């Protein structure tokens, strides 16, 4: 697949940076001529993945680093969110709707990520960290599509 553009964000694991990551990835993705509803889905997916990295991966420790990689392909967008936190022992269970290790939480983060993505991959090693990779087909439209 042809890479058209790429960016990496690296930031401190504080909750304020969830909104920062959401807006930044959306600004980057808006180059793809996506629709506003698509942009909304991107924002939600990024918020959930980055929130998970901070809350679960780093158990709210504020001195860690979260990495977000966004890649624009001719055919779509890939978003990868990485932490070097506690990791997930049972990925399949973690991804079940309404499953959460925290009784206060709703366990719907992965549901949103899944509903956004055409392909969602979660790689995790307990004690090492977690990588969530989401891929979404987004076609080029308008002037950009005609130029291609």
């Amino acid at each position, binding site marked *: 697949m042809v890479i058209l553009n790429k960016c990496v964000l690296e930031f401190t694991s504080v909750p304020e940076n969830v909104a920062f990551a959401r807006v930044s990835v959306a600004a980057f993705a808006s180059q793809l*001529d996506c629709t506003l509803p698509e942009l909304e889905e991107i924002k939600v997916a990024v918020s959930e993945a980055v929130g998970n990295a901070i809350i679960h991966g780093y158990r709210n420790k504020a001195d860690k680093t979260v990495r977000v990689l966004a890649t624009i392909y001719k055919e779509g967008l890939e978003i990868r969110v990485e932490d070097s936190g506690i990791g997930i022992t049972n990925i399949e269970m973690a991804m079940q709707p309404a499953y959460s290790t925290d009784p206060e939480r709703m366990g719907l983060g992965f549901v949103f990520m899944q*509903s956004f993505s055409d392909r969602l991959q979660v790689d995790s090693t307990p004690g090492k960290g977690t990588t969530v990779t989401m891929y979404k087909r987004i076609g080029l439209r308008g002037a950009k599509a005609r130029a291609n």
Partner: protein
Amino acid sequence: VGEIRRFLRDDSPVKVSRSLKETAYKIQQTRDRLTARLGRDPSINEIAEELGFGREEVVNALEAAQTPTSIYETLHQ
């Protein structure tokens, strides 16, 4: 899922993007109103609080309203 999302997320950016230009206009109005009330230029935080948005969404809306070649523009003509 969209439905659930709207119910669950209190910081949902959905309201903002409905019309980013309209939001940008509201931001300017709010800034003027707060400037009159406070006797100084308000901070983004104060504007965001007044409007009930996240401050990053304020930044986003202002940028979208400024960038004529952006997606936002073409969608709201």
